[in-house]
Structures are given as C-alpha cells and as structure tokens.
C-alpha cells in the first residue's frame, strides 16, 4: 500500500505529458467517453487541485469518484505514473475538505472494528432476510445493493480456531479471511479450509484481524488504511505460521505489498501450487467448461497464471479463455453502488465475453468480482478455483 507524499505527487503530476495513452485502457472512460473520465483528466484535476487552481469541491469529489482503482492506466502509462495512487491521494485531500460524516463514521469507526462491522452486517442481514425495510426505505438504497448476493453469517464466527490435516502437517498456515469472503461467501472459506487440510496444511483461522484497508485507502482515508494494515501485519506476524494465505486478490496485494521479510503472504492458488499434491488424492470432477476472469489486483500482482495452473491440475475441466479476461468487471468495491450505470455497462461487456466462451463456470480469485459477476448471468456458476478442488475431495 504505497502512500505518496505531496512531493512525490508533484513529481508524478509534472511528469504527465498528457499523451492520452491511458484513454485506451480505462474501463470507465470506455463507457463515458468524456475527457473528464479519462485517467489523464483525473491527473490534470489532481494537478490543478494541488496548485489550488481548482477548489476542493463536491464537483471535484464526484469527478475523482469515477475511478474503479483497477490500475490499468497505472500499468499502461509510458512514464510510469501511478494514476490510481494519485486518485487516492486526491480523494484524501477532498475527504479532509468536503465533510461526509456518515461515510466517515462507516469507514473510520465501523469498518475498522471487526466486532462493530460484524454487528452492523448482522443487523443488515436480518433486515435483508426479513425484508423488513419496506418499499419506502428500499427505494432510497442503490439498486445494486438490493440485487446482489445475500449477506451471510460471517465465516469467522462459523469456523473454528485451528484445523489439523489428517496426517502429519506439511505446512503451518494462517488463513486471513477478508471482508468479502467473511460476509458474502463463507462457504468459500469452509471449502478453502477443507482443501488446505486435505493437502496437509495445519490451518489457523485468523480471528483478530480486520479489513485489509484497501477500501479505506480508496475512499481517501490513508491514515485509517495504514493503521489497519499495521495492525493486521502485526497480528499475522505474531501468529508465527509458515505463511499467511488469502483467497482475495485485493487483500493479497495489500498485505503482500507491505509484509516485511518476516512474513510470507500468499494467494490461495499460489499456496496450493507450492504444496506437494498426491495425484491420486483427488477424484475427477464431472466435465465442466471453465473460463477465468482475472481480478485487477491479481493482474497487478502478476499472478494471473496461478489460477490457470491450478485449474489445469484438475482433471475433467476444459479451460476456454475469454477475450479480455483481465478487463475490469465493473465491481470496484463501492463503485458498483455509487456508479451503477457504468458498473452495469462494464458487467454487460464482461458477461458477453464470458457467454461467448460457452463456459458454464467462471472462476475468479476475488470475492468482490464474484459478487459482481454473480448478478450478471444467473445461469453461470461463479466460483473461486479452490471451490472446484473441493468438489474433488
């Protein structure tokens, strides 16, 4: 989680020659087609804000909210400008200047405390399950909040502390469960634990960790994000395992990016690939045609090969690549709630590429992508690759 200083920011902003190469890759610009939505436009805006030529206004905030944080522009920029970090920093200046008490309460008080967040989600779950909000209240909520997967009983409260492998342990693993898996896909956590133990891992479920902090960084709260990261890394280091594993590409990139030499953070696919697997241990799965969606954070971490290698090791699967597998699905955390139409347009593009493959299953390594893709085509099974492995057990 790099945090730019103002001096670094200025150097980067000066380096932008406005060549416009970022226009060719930005998903949001691809939908809106207005220069203000191009990464170049956001860098320009940040530059003008820094020099106080543009006020820190609600209009500027709205502009800078039009970024998914997919990093496609940062990877594309010929002069190496980390555009997404500039957007995050600009958002932090706006967050300090444009008051948003409700949002601040959510991000700094609730989303930083595992117990308060869990409580809040439980309440929301009851309201959602009992349909207790009523049409008048729900009409005020974002449509995409209502048509996504149902909140679940948190994985962290359902799982035990430690799981032992059937035989001698080949590795001692701490399982970091991020917010998405915890509240939306607890089944994934259960399946991950059974696959890992069956492969000989002793799995300790991390219960004293909080959100990885990326949502806070993206929301313009870098101090809160840094606090969470520091706390999580300290807790995970104290746990003293051989490695920390996460099923979420975003949590992975956040934790692995800042973990020191004493802490080894691995993506779940990456960990499984490193374990000795007895080929006879797994059953063949019924024939399935699978395609792979690459989460932005996995692409940025250079890990798109990991799920593919894992899938290749599972007999019975046919992997068909889709066009633009690394193209953003339009989820982008809270982006899908704030900018529903853009998010829906990107999802539509993604689903059409998915459908063109004829696949019945799409795998992805990010619960946020799973959430987004699940609402795109009800006939499609959207799962993490490890869930296909668990079928073999």
């Amino acid at each position, binding site marked *: 989680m790099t945090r730019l200083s103002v001096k670094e920011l200025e150097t980067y902003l*000066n380096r932008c*020659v406005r*060549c416009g190469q970022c*226009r060719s890759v930005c998903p949001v610009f691809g939908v809106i087609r207005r*220069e*203000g939505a191009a990464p170049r436009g956001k860098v320009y*805006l940040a530059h003008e804000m820094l020099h106080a030529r543009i006020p820190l206004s609600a209009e*500027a905030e709205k502009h800078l909210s039009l970024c998914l944080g997919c990093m496609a522009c940062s990877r594309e920029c*010929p*002069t190496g400008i980390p555009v997404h970090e500039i957007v995050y920093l600009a958002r932090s200046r706006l967050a300090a200047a444009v008051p948003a008490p409700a949002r601040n309460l959510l991000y700094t008080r609730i989303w930083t405390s595992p117990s308060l967040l869990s409580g809040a989600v439980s309440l929301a779950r009851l309201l959602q399950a009992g349909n207790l909000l009523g049409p008048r209240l729900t009409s005020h909520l974002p449509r995409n909040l209502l048509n996504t997967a149902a909140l679940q009983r948190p994985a962290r409260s359902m799982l035990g502390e430690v799981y032992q492998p059937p035989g001698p342990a080949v590795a001692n693993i701490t399982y970091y469960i991020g917010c998405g898996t915890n509240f939306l896909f607890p089944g994934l956590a259960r399946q991950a634990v059974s696959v890992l133990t069956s492969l000989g891992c002793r799995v300790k479920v991390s219960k004293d960790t909080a959100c990885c902090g990326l949502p806070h960084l993206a929301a313009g709260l870098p101090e809160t994000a840094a606090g969470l990261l520091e706390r999580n890394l300290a807790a995970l280091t104290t746990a003293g395992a051989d490695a920390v594993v996460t099923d979420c590409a975003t949590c992975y990139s956040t934790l692995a990016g800042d973990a020191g030499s004493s802490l080894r953070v691995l993506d779940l696919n990456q960990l499984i690939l490193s374990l000795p697997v007895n080929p006879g241990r797994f059953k063949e799965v019924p024939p399935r045609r699978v395609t792979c969606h690459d989460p932005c954070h996995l692409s940025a971490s250079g890990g798109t090969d990991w799920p593919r290698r894992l899938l290749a090791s599972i007999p019975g699967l046919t992997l068909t690549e889709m066009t633009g597998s690394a193209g953003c699905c339009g989820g982008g955390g809270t982006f899908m709630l704030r900018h529903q139409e853009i998010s829906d347009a990107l999802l539509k593009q993604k689903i059409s590429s998915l459908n063109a493959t004829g696949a019945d299953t799409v795998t992805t390594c990010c619960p946020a992508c799973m959430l987004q893709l699940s609402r795109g085509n009800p006939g499609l099974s959207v799962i993490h690759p490890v869930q296909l492995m668990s079928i073999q057990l």
Partner: protein
Amino acid sequence: MDKNWIQDRLKQILGPERVLAGELNHRMYSYDSSFLARLNNYIPDAVAFPASTGQVAEVMKFAWANNIPVTPRGAGTGETCGCVAVRGGIVLDLSPWDKIEEVDTANMQALVRPGVIHASLNEHLESHGLFFPPDPGSSRMCTLGGMVANNSSGLRAVKYGTTEHYVLGLEVVLPDGEVIITGGAACRAIKNVSGLNLTQLFTGSEGVLGVITLIRLRLWPRPGARGMIMAQFRRLADATPTVLEVYRGGILPSGVEILDDSAIRAVNLYYPEAALPEEAEAILLFEVDGNPASVQWEGEQIAAIAGRRAIRVEWATEKGRMAGLWQGRSLVAAAAARLQPGSTRIFAGEDICVPLSRVAEALEQIKALGQRHGIAVVNFGHIGDGNIHTAPVIDPRDRDQVARAARLVDEIHRLAIRLGGSTTGEHGVGAVRSCYAREEHGAALDTMLKVKRALDPKNIMNPGKIFPGSEGEQV
C-alpha cells in the same frame, strides 16, 4: 458571448446528453500534449458531441450565425495545441463518433467516422487481410479524423507515405454548415483526377477549413512477413550514409529509425536491462516487410550494408527477438525524462523534418543548441525520411528553464528551415508553429490565406492555428 447561452442553444440543437455539463468538465478540454497548452488555460465555452453529419451541420450553422469559434477535436493526443480552443468558443469532441460505416473489400477501401481509433480500424481489417498503412506512435488512442486533419504518419511513412496517400474522399461540413463530399460525390474509384483536389486541401487542414465527418480510405493488402535489423555505430556520421546506401541498394525498408547517444543514455538510465552500448553514437533500426522471401533477402542485404560501418549488427524475423531489438526505440519517449531527475519531457520543437543528406548535421546542431541553452535534449526519430523528434527535458516549474527551452525550440525550428527542411514532418502546425509560416512558405502563405478567407470569411473554424497571429487576424 455568454457561455451558458451557447451551451443552452447547443442543448436545444443536439439534445442535453450531447452537450458537456459541469464547469469542471470543461477544463479537461483545455489541453492536448503540447507544452503550450500546459502553460495556458484555454478553457472552451462549450463542448459538444455531435454524432451525425446533420448535427455537425446544425452546430456550424448556429456558430456561423453567431460568429462563435469552433474547434474540432479527436482524442486530444496532438502536440500542437491544434484541437484546443485558443480563442474560446465551441469544442466539437468527435472521438465518441467512432463507427466504421463500411469495409468495401472488393474496392479496397473503408468508410469511417472521424472518431474511429487507428488501431481499432486495423484490428477490424485484419480478418479481411487488409490494412491502413500509416502508423502513428499514438495508434491505440488517436482518431482517424485527427490523423486526416493533421495528415499524420509514423515510422512506416518511409515506404508507405503519409495519411494523404490513403484519403480517397471526405465528407466535410463547411463553416456555414453546408455539407460537401470531395473525391466524387458517389465515387468508389481508386484513382480520380477529376476537378480540383479538394480531398488533399482538407487533408492536413487542421480543422481551419471545415469539419471532417466521413473519411473514405484506401486500404492495402497486409504484408505477410516482417524483419528487423539493428545496427550500432561508433560515429553518428556513419548512420546517414548507411541509410542512403540501403536505398541505393534498391531496398525501401518499411521503417528506418535512429537513436542518438542522448537517447541511448536515456534508455539505459530508464531501463538498465536494455544495456544499449554507451560507446555508440547512434543506433539504426530498419524494418522490412513483404513476402517471406523478400524479407529474408532485404534483411541480409541491409545487414551486410550496415556491417561496413557498424560496430554491431543483428537481424531477426522471429517476433520475440524483433521486439527485443526494437526495445530501445519503444522505451525512448518515456525514458527521455530520466536525463534530468525531477524533470519531464515537453512537446515543443519535436517534429522537424530535414533533407536526408543533412540529418547528421541537424542532430549535431540540435545537440550543440541544447548545450548552449543549458537544456537536456533527447533525439530520436524517423531518419528514413529525415523526421527528427527532439525531446527537451526540463522542470516545468522553473521559469528560467521554460524561457531557455522556448529559445531552444525556436532555434530548432529555424534550423530546420535553414537546412532546407520543414518545421513539422507529421505532427502539424497548430498554434505552436504558426509563427514560422511566413518564413517557411513566403508568398504561398498569401494563397493559403486566400483559401481560408474564401471558405471561412468569418474565421470561426479553429482560429489561431496554422496562420501566424497578425496575418491570421486579417482573415
């Protein structure tokens, strides 16, 4: 004129969704890649997104009736301030209008709207075995409307020529809103010498004569094979004779690029793994294309000719190795800023074109000018046609450096004219090079002004471009 009134009227003409809203949004149309746009704040009064010839015509009629300047804009990737409304008024962002209307394979041509991205057209043509040969470095983002308006090209111009060689006809909305089709109203012929050549008048006219709304492009068969030859020279003076000897050997490569020692140093600072030889004063890169047998023969011939003077020559037809040889050239634009930490490359004085026989002389003199003004410069470009891209590297916050860079680029432009060349080979004039028009064109500028006055007597089409300030005002 009140910008709210202009915006309201445009909304009535085009519908609210085709007119830009929000104060802040308009600022994003104040720039292109030019340093001039960066130093100024050319915020337009209104930005419109027409998506039909009729809509463009209606906007022009409105602008004509009310004397409002109109600046057509593509992707805004130009380096001349050409698509920036330096006199205010309306910017027409044509980039979202990106329909490929037709690929007429039988007649080897395509009909495209101005917003089609260059790379998208060529991707689309791949399955037809055809291509549109000009290849600007900005292929993935620039629009064909912008390419035609600036008559742009790229490294393959040495063999395939520039955009003008492929424009068969245009649909143009004139400043008063009248719509004409050049190159024959219903013509699908490849050759046509009937009438005055209006197609070529509008090609490269940089939006000062009208708005291009449809382009009929000539397509070529896609070559099946490619080869790359890299040659390193201890002395810069050995590079140009090598290029001339290749031509005399009966070979026309599809590209001939040069990196001088400043470019070599910048690439090595940016990406040490490239490990370009620092003892070399120049690296030449030749690209050949055609059928596999001719590529093989031409590659061997060029390697042998280059070998007479070069300290190292390598050539390849395998994709991965070709990319390896090309690496230095692909990195140089981004690498330029590394010559001076905390600084950036600026787009100014970056596009002169000199006679082939004087390329080495031009490079030496640009280097000397850089030293005299205390400005770091990186030189690279299309040596095959004498087109040199100079990248001055400065700290844009430092006023003294900005002033010295301005003097440097002025001298680079005058050097080009003195050497019998042009101030711009492929980027265009825009607002940044108009001051050299009289010196470059002499009395021909008066004829250009007559054409401008005849078509745009109110001077509403992209004012402040091509023609020097005082003379442009008299339009």
